[in-house]
């Protein structure tokens, strides 16, 4: 069940983890906008700013102490990155309006890196924000409580359902179910005996949950209170200011004459 492994949250504490999730999300959005702003054209690719964007995020990863998880998510993106590179390279090559081979390479590389920077910023967000915090952020941005509750409860039950799936798998294997047999279609069909008990159990579980919720005064008042409240701290304000500065700087750079491609700068 390695698929579920990634969804398991771990309670870690670091300056980055303690940042307000709303602020972190704002930062990710700013980074998203900046990343989209750069990339350039086939004969004037802007690889340089993307490299800068990629590296300025590394201190975040180090400060949060999620190096290994981050590396794993980067590796996960590798296939798509390679695909984007190849796609751009091949089609631009066929299209054939590029000035030099070096520029074509740089452009394809820039497009791939742009994607990687986006993945990087989102993965930092999700690696350093506990689902707890995320749910709380949703609540405090006035998302209806039902949705927030559904979200945190879903996260809460991921490990439980993963465990249950494992138990069902063992039980069915003990009765002679062979999962790894047959062609592709047959293999998918093999999973039906796992899915049915899993779904039935999940429905039964949800009924029990509903009962327990009702017994704990669910829906007693319109104005729910909350044990935890997110408040902005100094570090949060610093990140907001930093994000805004980055955005201003990016817009300023954008308004300047186009950034020369690396190929030109390095006289290749």
């Amino acid at each position, binding site marked *: 069940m390695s698929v579920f492994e990634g969804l398991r*949250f771990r*309670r870690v504490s670091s300056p980055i983890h303690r940042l307000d999730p709303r602020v972190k999300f704002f930062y990710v959005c700013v980074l998203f906008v900046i990343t989209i702003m750069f990339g350039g054209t086939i004969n004037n690719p802007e690889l340089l700013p993307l490299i800068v964007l990629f590296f300025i995020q590394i201190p975040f990863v180090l400060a949060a102490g999620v190096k290994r998880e981050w590396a794993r998510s980067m590796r996960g993106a590798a296939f798509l990155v390679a695909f984007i590179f190849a796609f751009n390279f091949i089609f631009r090559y066929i299209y054939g309006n590029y000035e030099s081979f070096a520029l074509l390479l740089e452009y394809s590389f820039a497009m791939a890196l742009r994607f990687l920077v986006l993945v990087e910023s989102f993965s930092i967000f999700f690696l350093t924000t*506990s*689902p*707890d915090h995320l*749910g709380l952020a949703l609540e405090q941005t006035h998302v209806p409580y039902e949705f927030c*509750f559904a979200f*945190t*409860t879903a*996260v*809460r039950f991921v*490990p*439980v359902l993963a465990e249950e799936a494992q138990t069902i798998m063992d039980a069915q294997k003990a009765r002679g179910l062979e999962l790894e047999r047959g062609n592709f279609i047959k293999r998918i069909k093999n999973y039906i005996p796992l899915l049915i008990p899993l779904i039935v159990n999940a429905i039964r*579980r949800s009924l*029990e*949950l*509903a*009962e*327990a*919720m*009702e*017994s*704990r*005064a*669910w*829906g*007693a*008042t319109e*104005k*729910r*209170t*909350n*044990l*935890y*409240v997110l408040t902005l701290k100094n570090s949060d304000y610093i990140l907001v200011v930093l994000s805004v500065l980055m955005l201003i700087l990016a817009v300023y750079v954008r308004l300047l004459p186009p950034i020369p491609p690396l190929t030109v700068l390095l006289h290749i």
Partner: protein
Amino acid sequence: MAVIETKGLTYTYPSGTKRALEDVSITIERGEFVVLTGPSGCGKTTLCRCFNGLVPHFYGGKLEGNVLVTGLNVHEHSIYELARHVGLVFQNPENQLFALSVEKDVAFGLENLGVPRDEMKKRVDWALQTTDIEDLRERAPHELSGGQQQRVAIASVLAMQPNVMVLDEPTSFLDPLGAQRIFEVINELNKNLGITVVLVEHRLDLAARYADHVIIMDEGRVMLDGKPREIFGLEKTRLMGIGIPKSTRLYQVLEKSGVHLSKVPITSEEATQILKEVLNRD
């Protein structure tokens, strides 16, 4: 004063054809520790659900007769109103914890009631202390053992400061030691805080010693209702398939072979003492 009073309670689930409860009339006094037992499918759980309005409000169906819980008529009050007075703890500890941390779970009921934050924090601390799980405060429910989860479930009900706590087979997913610990916690709540306890339980060997009132049900009816010693001592109780405490069973066997003990023992300690008296006398 009666905390729970039912009169002629009869109920059928919307999907069912058989009556789940039939003419149940019981009275539970304030501060009592009630053990409710009977064979599986005898209506114990259904009766528990009546106490906080899950039956009929959540399950539907027609409820006949009267149920008064802390003076409130279950027909007329919604589940969340009754939840302030009656706390329900369920069988499966896993399915009654929703939050990602213990602390947040204990606060869940209070959040729903709209209790102010300062008050909430105090009550959460108090509930965690009382059930002795302060060290688990930050943990996620799935990291806990079944016994710990069940104590969290008790704490989260306790935080709402109910007058009555109804526990529906809270130990059936636990090992004997975990079960023992749960019973001790429940007993402390009953003796120290004066919370009325209704405990549905099969493990009478462990639970019977705490009871001061026993109700035995079968096929939706109340078969026996009274003091533990009287009820467990009856031959009829055993024949209904109730797992009476072993020391009580010993009493019955001795009685049949002509040895009379001075009183019906419930625990092995009692049995030992009574037997000593008998042996010294001869």
